């Protein structure tokens, strides 16, 4: 009988939409804007140092979120532009696409933000991001020796993540 086996990771990984490795990079931020994880698979151009790059990405999401909520035509109640929001409040965007890349974004009510930058023709990655959130729970949060709010240095998480993202469309 197995007592302390790992629990199922739900949902099971969604099927890849297109085959081939086309992920560029990934960020995980916590609610305080600390970059918990940055992974890079295919990024030929670096224009900023890592810290500025993370800050820029977090700032982009922060502004875009309040902008999209402000533009929401379906909700009568909305804050003013730039006014802080509670995580998960109001409407939220989940991806945007440029002619050279696609950025997919997920935020949990606890303020964990997962950002995946991929090839512009990638399909809907919302299920995949949710799956990555589950990986984060299983391999990072449940690790008793991981201190919450610090950068993730967890081999098992990185390997599993790499494997999963490589198989991703």
């Amino acid at each position: 009988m197995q007592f302390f086996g790992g629990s199922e990771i739900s949902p099971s990984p969604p099927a890849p939409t297109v085959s081939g490795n086309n992920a560029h990079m990934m960020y995980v931020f916590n609610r305080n804007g600390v970059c918990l994880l940055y992974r890079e698979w295919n990024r030929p151009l670096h224009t900023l140092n890592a810290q500025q790059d993370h800050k820029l990405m977090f700032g982009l999401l922060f502004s875009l979120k309040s902008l999209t909520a402000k533009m929401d035509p379906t909700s009568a109640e909305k804050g003013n532009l730039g006014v802080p929001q509670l995580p998960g409040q109001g409407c939220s965007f989940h991806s945007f696409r440029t002619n050279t890349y696609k950025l997919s974004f997920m935020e949990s009510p606890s303020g964990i933000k997962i950002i995946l930058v991929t090839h512009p023709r990638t399909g809907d990655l919302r299920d995949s991001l949710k799956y990555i959130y589950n990986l984060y729970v299983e391999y990072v949060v449940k690790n008793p020796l991981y201190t919450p709010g610090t950068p993730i240095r967890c081999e098992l998480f990185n390997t599993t993540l790499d494997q999963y993202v490589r198989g991703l469309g």
Partner: protein
Amino acid sequence: MAPVAPRSGDAIFANVERVNAELFTLTYGAIVRQLLTDLEEVEEVNKQLDQMGYNIGIRLIDEFLAKSNVSRCVDFKETAEVIAKVGFKMFLGVTASVTNVDADGTCCSLILEDNPLVDFVELPDTCQGLYYCNILSGIIRGALEMVSMKTEVTWLHDMLRGDDVYELQVKLLKQVPEEYPYKDDE
């Protein structure tokens, strides 16, 4: 893509690996016992249990959110319902009920009739001030803090002290909005 419906506490509970209840109860008992030995003062033990619970809560919330698909609650009463029906079921295998919601909906009670932590436990005279399950209040406080709610969680009734039920009062102090964490000149 249609939004995924939140999963019920029963469904999640049925799907996770569980440990033997007695092992769980006795392990918790051993922790409390050790704290009593180490800290000597009952008050200190209460504090320590609460702190340990808090540390669990700030991690537990992510597991809870990842497995339950619960999204943002409309108000504090719904939050309490979700804790009682989904949270307690998912992690302890029991459900609680929500009562005594006050007029502005910022304070309510969670009633636990069945509490797996206290099997085999009787409070001796030397430990009268002990809140044996104080870890639970810390967990709730920690978990809610991670979803932007500062709360105060206190025990109103405790069966180990001769009451009929376990009653936890959860009081919402304030909601903390997300702020831009960097200074402009950094």
